[in-house]
């Protein structure tokens, strides 16, 4: 991979965002709305005696912020690709000396930027609105973020592969895919609260291990390294699968002429 190529692609994405106020607005608007809504709903429930569980409100706030990391990471990859589709620029990119690994790496870097920028804003709002300091978790927090970003990349790469395979009709998957896996990710509830068959699926999802570990730490338990280790291991497997799927889909799209259809229609 050529770092200059990745940097050039990343610069382009940054320019696309900074020169489009609507894109920048969208970057902040939804995460802030989510945080405020979930934060005040949980505060209200606690104040009405709906839940007396210790750490209920902070858990929901932390879960909201961390889920957003996964979502932003996935969106960073998928929307970067769609930007090229919408602007009819994909043909220019795919016919330039740009390796697909470089293209995906740049899209993943966009994911990192989106996660960092929205993450900072959400941490500040959580502190101001709920006196909740997410940064207190230090090293575990970094490990959770890394795992969720990795899985976001995986979902982003799968989203691109499906759009290439099925064309414009599949664009909505770029937004839908994270929410398809959300019930299995145990973001706002414990895995044990799910029906048995869903629990089995849930344990195969890296985010479920992250959020279970997070709830444990927030309940005052020491960091469960086993959960973290499983999350990293699963992410590695899913990453390999996403890479394989993307590579296969691209080869098939070149074979069927689908790449040109997606690029130029």
């Amino acid at each position, binding site marked *: 991979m050529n770092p*200059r*190529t990745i*940097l*050039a*692609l990343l*610069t*382009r994405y940054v*320019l*696309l965002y900074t*020169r*489009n106020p609507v894109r920048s607005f969208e970057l902040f608007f939804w995460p802030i709305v989510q945080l405020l809504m979930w934060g005040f709903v949980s505060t209200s429930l606690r104040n009405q005696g709906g839940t007396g569980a210790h750490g209920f409100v902070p858990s929901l706030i932390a879960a909201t912020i961390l889920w957003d990391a996964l979502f932003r990471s996935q969106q960073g990859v998928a929307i970067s690709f769609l*930007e090229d589709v919408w*602007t*009819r*620029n*994909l*043909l*220019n*990119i*795919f*016919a*330039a*000396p*740009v*390796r697909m690994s470089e293209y995906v790496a740049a899209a993943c870097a966009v994911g990192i930027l989106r996660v960092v920028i929205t993450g900072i804003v959400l941490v500040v709002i959580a502190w101001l609105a709920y006196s909740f300091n997410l940064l207190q978790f230090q090293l575990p927090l970094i490990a959770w973020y890394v795992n969720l970003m990795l899985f976001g990349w995986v979902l982003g790469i799968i989203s691109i592969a499906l759009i290439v395979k099925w064309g414009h009709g599949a664009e909505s998957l770029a937004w839908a895919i994270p929410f398809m896996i959300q019930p299995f990710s145990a973001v706002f509830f414990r895995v044990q609260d799910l029906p048995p068959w869903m629990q089995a699926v849930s344990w195969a999802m890296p985010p479920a291990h992250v959020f279970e570990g997070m709830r444990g730490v927030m309940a005052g338990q020491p960091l469960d390294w086993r959960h973290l280790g499983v999350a990293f291991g699963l992410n590695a497997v899913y990453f390999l699968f996403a890479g394989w799927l993307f590579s296969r889909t691209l*080869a098939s799209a*070149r*074979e*069927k*002429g689908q*790449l*040109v259809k997606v*690029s*130029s229609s």
Partner: protein
Amino acid sequence: MSAPTLEIRNIVKRFGEFTAVDGVSLEVRSGEVVGLLGVNGAGKTTLMNMILGLITPTEGSIHAFGMDLAKDRMKILRRSNFCTTYAALPGNLKVKHNLIIFAKLYGVDNPKKKVADLLELLEITRLSDKPTGQLSAGESTRVNLAKALLNDPELLLLDEPTASLDPDIADKVRKLVRRVQKDRAPAILYTSHNMRDIEEVCDRVLFMHKGKILASGTADEITSHFKEDDLEDVFIKIARSGQLDGLLPAEKTDFPAL
């Protein structure tokens, strides 16, 4: 005679039962402009996309600069470029930003200077700070041509570069292509529906129909072969024939073999 810059041998592309390109062979040499002419669906754009590696051929081989496209696509693309009406540059970026980014993708040294020089060459320096989405069709074409010339390509693919342009701008584009050919001597493959483009710009013409090359030669050779007054009449004759019967395949003509 120098080795061909682009060499295509017996290329076939099938999409299921449909054969889009059927056993096409061609060569384009440095300094030569070869026109690819044909009605809609003749297979011109599919052929172009195969040369760019966007579509995988079913059979046959494509070599550029002596390298096999299937094995050395990245090396070939670094020395090639293209301009097509089917692609655009992001509309909310300034012209100079789009071009500088592509210059970097093509590994151009000193991208800013290169972009400034090309904008001057194409007489569009005034557009440098304009958002690309606000350009007229003619301005967009010239910006796309600037993108296509960023890396001083030795192989240049131009897919209908004058489509949707008024005669004045189309004339300027044709002159520019001629100038690029004279100054830099790339091998140019040029598709168009505009007969004037082909007659003015191309040294040699390949006439495609239903995925095959029917004839090749200069514009005059082709018109006399089909016993018509000009290329436009040949075009109409082939388009209305609806079939290949009666239209001699290239290897049966008296024109120079490909």
